[in-house]
């Protein structure tokens, strides 16, 4: 028995002292990366920009509050032939171990995206530290500029961008979804587009008034890819159409003309919806019937009429359906005619229904898709009209 215990103690000691501490990285020894960006430089190298959190300015509680809005991040870049090489060069500049585990955003510069994104994604998918759930974005311009901004509301711009994506204000893509789209022949990738734009000011801050206007990251649509190369953009309006055609997420706001006063608008907030794509193929011609079911709440009206009447709601619903259809068609036309890529996943829908035919068509799918006929039918419903029936601020007639 005594022997058993000695052996146990010996084992613990052995593991304790001989083993050493290989994988140990104290939290104070790591540089926590919150956002990263990849650019293709003019001389054909990869420039990796990382936004590193400065832990000192994250202190919570009483002490932290006093420091105010001191920038909480540090953006630093390095160049190399590959991302890993660039990271090694970065390591010569950053005095701590570079730690990817909490990287929130991956921004791909415009040039890099045009060159091909598969060069970029490999590292982030293969390495164990970066997560599959990081948000992928394409910068209009250079990724470096995006990372060098800082946010007014959040501590760092990377966190701000991540929150913007999480709220699904645009079409948000996680790295894993990007990889899935890249790996599938039935759909071409789209990725959120971000731009650096002037944002509001912090009132009362003297410093802020003197310095040039504050720059911040903004989501402005999506970038359209063919395979892994960026070939064009969709603006925010068409992005909504794209999202509705893809079937997720459906939330959004549209305005339709008021039934009685066509020059005034009524805003409808779309709460939920469903998209169904039904391919029809007879060997030659290809047709897709897209059915979109939408449900929204009326949230605002400019006109003075009383909209709380069944026939008026009917009218609103048809207007809503029209508007949705118009936007979807805009996105569709752009993709079909201008870019000739299937960014909607029509190919996957086709694959699900016509297994055999898919095998022949899959390698020239984008061409096939280009000629496909798409019929969009929208069924829209308004469920809720807010807290008032008639407008409360209009006098009785």
């Amino acid at each position, binding site marked *: *028995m*005594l022997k*058993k*215990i000695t052996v*146990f103690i010996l084992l*613990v000691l052995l*593991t*304790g002292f001989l*083993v*050493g*501490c290989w*994988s*140990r*990285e*104290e*939290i*104070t020894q*790591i540089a*926590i990366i*919150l956002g990263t960006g990849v650019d293709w430089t003019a001389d054909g190298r990869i420039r990796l920009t990382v936004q590193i*959190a400065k*832990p*000192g*300015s*994250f*202190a*919570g*509680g009483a002490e*932290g509050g006093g420091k105010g809005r001191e920038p909480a991040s540090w953006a630093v870049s390095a160049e190399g032939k590959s991302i890993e090489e660039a990271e090694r060069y970065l390591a010569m500049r950053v005095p701590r171990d570079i*730690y990817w*585990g*909490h990287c*929130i955003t991956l921004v791909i510069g415009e040039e890099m995206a045009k060159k091909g994104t598969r060069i970029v994604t490999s590292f982030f998918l293969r390495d164990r*530290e970066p*997560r599959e759930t990081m948000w992928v974005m394409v910068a209009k311009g250079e990724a470096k500029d995006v990372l060098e901004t800082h946010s007014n509301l959040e*501590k760092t711009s990377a*966190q701000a961008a991540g929150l913007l994506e999480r709220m699904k204000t645009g079409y948000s893509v996680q790295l894993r979804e990007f990889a899935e789209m890249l790996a599938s022949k039935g759909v071409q990738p789209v990725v959120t587009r971000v731009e650096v734009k002037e944002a509001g000011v912090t009132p009362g801050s003297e410093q802020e008034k003197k310095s040039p206007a504050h720059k911040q990251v903004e989501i402005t649509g999506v970038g359209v890819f063919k395979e892994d190369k960026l070939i064009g953009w969709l603006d925010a309006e068409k992005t909504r159409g794209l999202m509705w055609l893809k079937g997720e997420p459906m939330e959004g706001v549209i305005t339709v003309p008021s039934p009685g006063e066509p020059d005034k608008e009524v805003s409808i907030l779309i709460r939920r919806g469903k998209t169904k794509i039904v391919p029809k193929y007879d060997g030659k011609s290809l047709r897709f019937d897209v059915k979109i079911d939408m449900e929204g709440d009326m949230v605002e009206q400019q006109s003075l009429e009383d909209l709380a009447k069944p026939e008026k709601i009917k009218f609103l619903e048809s207007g809503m359906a029209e508007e949705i259809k118009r936007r979807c068609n805009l996105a569709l036309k752009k993709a079909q005619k201008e870019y000739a890529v299937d960014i909607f996943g029509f190919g996957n829908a086709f694959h699900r229904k016509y297994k055999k035919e898919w095998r022949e068509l899959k390698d020239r799918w984008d061409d096939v898709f280009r000629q496909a006929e798409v019929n969009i039918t929208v069924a829209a419903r308004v469920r809720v009209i807010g807290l008032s029936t008639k407008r409360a601020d209009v006098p009785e007639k």
Partner: protein
Amino acid sequence: MIGFRKPIRAKTLGRGSQKSQGNIEGGALSSVSLKNLVLSPDLETNLRQIKTILDRCSDVVYREFVFAQNEEIRLALIYTDGLADKVQVSDQIMKALALEVAMAAPGQEITKARALEFIKQRGLCIHQIKETNKVEDIIDAILSGDTVLLVDGHATAIINGARGFETRSISDPEAEPTVRGSRESFIESLRVNTSLIRRKIKSPNLKIESMKLGEVTATDVAIAYIEGIANDKLVAEVKNRLGRIKVDAILESGYLEELIEDNPFSPFPTVNHTEKPDRVAAMLLEGRVAIVVDGTPFVLTVPNLFIEYLQAPEDYYERFIFATAVRVIRFLSMIISLVLPSLYIAVVSFHHEIFPTTLLLNVAAQREAVPFPVFIEVMIMEMTFEILREAGIRLPRPIGQAVSIVGALVIGEAAVRAGLVAAATVIVVAFTGIASFTFAYSASIAFRLLRFTLMVLSATLGLFGLVSGLAIIAIHLCTLRSFGVPYLSPLVPTIGADLKDVILRAPWWAMFSRPRLIARQEQIRLEQGLKPSPPETRPKGKG
């Protein structure tokens, strides 16, 4: 165990007897010769013999006097001052014999030959008397507080059970305070303790067997169990293990605990102890055996299961839903007290990905200025906590309070302000410390020890080390048995019916049977269908 204790005992006794018993006939008086000594009819010889044995025991009183009826009958009373009840000795023995003995029968003279018989039957006003002719028994009786009466001309002594020594009064349980439930606790006197148990269980089946253990101390030990509920094999095993013990002293039940354990090298106690009579009664009713030791308020109960440490007596007195909720909390605290610091070390120095981003940044910010690696930091804090805790127990009560306040202030506040420790570390250590007080103290000692081992493991191998360490602890717990009962039962091996009283505390009307592995088979605790329900017709009240 017994092997190496024996020579020590022989040596001490031998040395003692050589000095004091040099002049006695037949050489040194050893324990063996004491065993064979018997009384002689001559009072003088007897007294001399006893005085030699109890040489230099100034607390032993020898009182020689003569019988009231017949002055030829000489008597001697021997007792230990302080242990015998003086009132009883003077009123019921001395006064009765020396002054007030009634006439046996008119005109009938009490002769020397009839003296013993007469005194026994009519002279003494004591409830409990015993006759003996062995010197050993006499010595034993004197030292236990009984009063020995020697009668001239008779080789038999009368032992009067007139003990009356000072004992502490029954007070609140200090180590196991409860909000609801009996406030009695055991005290140092064996008799009082057995009476406390007997008062709870008024059944003839409650058996209390006693024995004396300890060669020098001759401590009274009683084994209590309920016949018909306790497993006979278990009772036999307990007696067997106690019978094997040959040590010089039993000063506390802890001595016994170490001598009868199943696995002496385990950090986990496999014998439970309590100072609450109601708890002992409950244990006995579940089929356990209790061992009461004179001189300590802690009563041992066996077999001991791991889950007992999660059960508090109050659980059974409070409403069952609340009791269950509290048990869940206790269970969580147990896990926290074992793993939280090691988990913290592992996460902060290996697995940063576990933290949500904001929390990671927060912790990183706190640790920015801390000069030590997190392992050293947690170790220092844990050690400080342990030192404070120990100091709190050892110090006189008024100072203890001050120490804890100063400790908390200095270490908590100042160390964080000075940037020596991160606030998160203080939170982790303090929380662990508090969590370790939610369940039984003896288990929390084991957990505290293991906590440090786990900290070393997780500082070297991260979560892998932590999980490996936990696995070893789990395996060890699986191998443990307490008096033949698997330590982790009824959890593992799972006994469905007994799970009613593990994390869950089922209502009393649902706990039909006694624990399967402890009590005899198929023991029914109460009848089924006792679940109370409102009467079918409501009584017509006002309003």
